């Protein structure tokens, strides 16, 4: 790995996102909306890191990351909504408006802990982690893998989505939760808070990246790749595959949950639409487009795809699907290592005058 090249990439990223954009915002030539948008893309990038860890490195195609994302998101959203609640329940605890409309008399028990910010934060991490632990335990214990894994997680996401859609679950149904006012006493609509959330998201992304980097560079990361290559060989070499899978599943769920928590106050709404089957598939797409099995690729992919999604739905409202579709197809056909791979190829080509690259690119031709 060319460390110099990496350094350049990091430097560009930091300069652009940590200095130019925030400064531009403070000086007024970058709108608050742009800041919020990028803040949200960073959240997506955090999820993408998780997806890359579990799919790119471990080879487990999990199609329920969006669900974990929403678990995190909902817990913060519930807290914010409770803080902004005007109606009041029979037991005197404030109650979100939508419950009042639905003739709910008292705040449901599972809403109660979300009055406290600390508890919300804790639950926002604990619930997804517990979910991943229990669900993962059963899946991995019975050695479900490959497509079976993909479909079973998709089934989970689908079932959860259906449940969240229901009004009876007291989570706002299809509408989800919206109308957020304050977080920790700070008004979410002020530019300062928006910028703050942006910076927090960026820093969290940085930390998540650093953490993931450490993870995959450690022997733990190699075991993950070994599992991807040959699960049985990994077992025969005395690694408890299930523990590793479970651990990385939980890590990925936590990353998704953290991202969800940061996403919600910046977006102002969370609905079950964020966790439907499409949402999870799209998360996998980001990683694949950016370059599977490379952490930078995951970040790059999620930022670029979401950025394109935003601008295309505005610039080409009638044809953005064509554009995005063609992007996907061509990336896959011509840049088989994702955008990052493409970038590296270009860089390598430019630098090849100095030293020829000995990297073999072939793959197993015969395989049974």
């Amino acid at each position, binding site marked *: 790995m060319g460390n110099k090249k990496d350094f350049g990439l990091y430097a560009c990223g930091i300069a652009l996102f940590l200095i130019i954009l925030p400064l531009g915002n403070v000086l007024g030539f970058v709108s608050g*909306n742009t800041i919020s*948008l990028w803040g949200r893309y960073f959240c997506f990038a955090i999820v993408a890191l998780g997806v890359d860890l579990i799919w790119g490195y471990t080879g487990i195609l999990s199609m329920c990351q969006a669900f974990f994302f929403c678990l995190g998101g909902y817990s913060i959203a519930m807290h914010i909504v409770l803080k902004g609640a005007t109606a009041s329940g029979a037991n005197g605890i404030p109650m979100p408006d939508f419950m009042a*409309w639905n003739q709910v008399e008292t705040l449901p028990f599972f809403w109660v802990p979300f009055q406290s910010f600390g508890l919300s934060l804790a639950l926002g991490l604990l619930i997804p982690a517990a979910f991943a632990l229990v669900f993962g335990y059963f899946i991995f214990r019975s050695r479900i893998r490959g497509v079976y894994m993909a479909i079973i997680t998709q089934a989970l996401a689908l079932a959860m989505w259906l449940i969240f859609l229901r009004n009876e679950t007291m989570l706002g149904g299809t509408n989800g939760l919206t*109308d957020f006012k304050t977080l920790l006493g700070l008004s979410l609509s002020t530019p300062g808070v928006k910028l703050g959330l942006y910076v927090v998201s960026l820093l969290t992304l940085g930390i998540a990246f650093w953490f993931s980097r450490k993870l995959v560079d450690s022997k733990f990361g190699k075991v993950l790749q070994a599992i991807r290559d040959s699960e049985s060989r990994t077992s025969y070499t005395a690694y408890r595959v299930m523990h590793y899978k479970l651990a990385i599943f939980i890590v990925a769920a936590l990353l998704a949950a953290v991202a969800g928590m940061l996403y919600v106050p910046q*977006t*102002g709404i969370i609905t079950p*639409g964020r966790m439907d089957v499409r949402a999870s598939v799209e998360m996998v797409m980001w990683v694949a487009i950016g370059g599977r099995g490379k952490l930078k690729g995951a970040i790059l992919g999620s930022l670029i795809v979401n950025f394109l999604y*935003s601008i295309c739905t505005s610039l080409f409202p009638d044809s953005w699907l064509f554009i995005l579709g063609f992007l996907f197809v061509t990336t896959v056909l011509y840049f088989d290592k994702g955008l990052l791979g493409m970038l590296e190829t270009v860089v390598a080509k430019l630098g090849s005058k100095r030293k020829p690259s000995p990297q073999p690119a072939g793959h197993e031709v015969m395989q049974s």
Partner: protein
Amino acid sequence: ACGGSGSGSNQESKKETVKVGILHSLSGTMAISEVSLKDVVQMAIDEINAKGGVLGKQIEPVIVDPASDWDLFAEKSKELLLDKKVSAVFGCWTSVSRKSVLPVFEENNGLLFYPVQYEGEECSTSVIYTGATPNQQLIPAAEYMMSEEGGGYKKFYLLGTDYVFPRTANKILKAFLLSKGVPKENIVEEYTPFHHQDYQTIVSKVKQFAAGGKACVLSTINGDSNVPFYKEFANQGLSAATCPIMAFSVAEDELRATDTEFLVGHLAAWNYFQSKESPENKKFVEDFRAFCKKNNLPGGDKRVTDDPICWAYTGVYLWAKAAEKAGSFEVSKVRPALYGLEFASPDGLVKMDMKNHHLAKPVMIGEIKPDGQFDIIWQSTGLVNPEPWSKLTSPDKDCDHVGHGGTYTVASK
């Protein structure tokens, strides 16, 4: 296929423009209904521009696609208000999408013209509701079904898509039916998710329910679930004769290319039907066809108008008239100028309420004909005033932006 057709007729491009946003899903589940609204808003803008624009400025539409994704609705509305700095936004169909953009509009002092019938219980400063409130659609329809003329139905199956509008609508309907002495066991409520396709089980439940006779369905099914629902209804041998469906979200546009054979005789309640006979309406329908044909929109001159299309169109004119009246595009000036504003819509003269951001308009009930049009079988006498807070479920609340700044609690007697 039709990008930029709105500005196509903008001859003097140098002229100053005023931007408005169009926020309708052009893809995803709701595109089926919302694309036509985008089209008609563009048509209204073209018409106004051709007549010289508003306050001497040409209107420049900014079209975005929120893709039936509620988060994206919020994001796009932010973009329209903050980055594009539009003076007004015409958009949304489902109440979910409206609720998701509501905080954005309120926070950033935007103005949203919302053209679809909805469940009420809302009274936002930032929204002009040109669609019907429950008392302008739901209640008259239920009343009609119970009347001798309407068939004297005694059992009601409330079937809807699972989201705010149907939930709230059914809450109100239930309250109304109970107040009219319909026993509890004669009312059934059921919901299906968006995009639900398989109605076998539900229809057989309806069939059992209807076995006693004198039963009807009040449907708030939205979007593309309707066709399979009606198809299954006919398949299992139910018909308008044995158990009619009164729909609140099925209009001509949804029936446009549908095989209407199995829909004939079922009912819908709206404030406008394309079949309304009046010269203004005739012109409106023809204009819309011509517009779609000219711009090569799918369907071309086979396109039809319907209630939301009519009110989306009306919304643009209301905004333009109010801006002229206020002499400004500023939201704080346009908003009060809207109060009491009258407009000769394709549906006849309609009038903005003096204080609650809604529109007074006629109510009609139509029977589906084989050609996908409606036979108007009942019509209210005169305009019905909007009641955003239903008297049945929220007797203590009312909406007044002049005297109370929005929703307020009525002093109880």
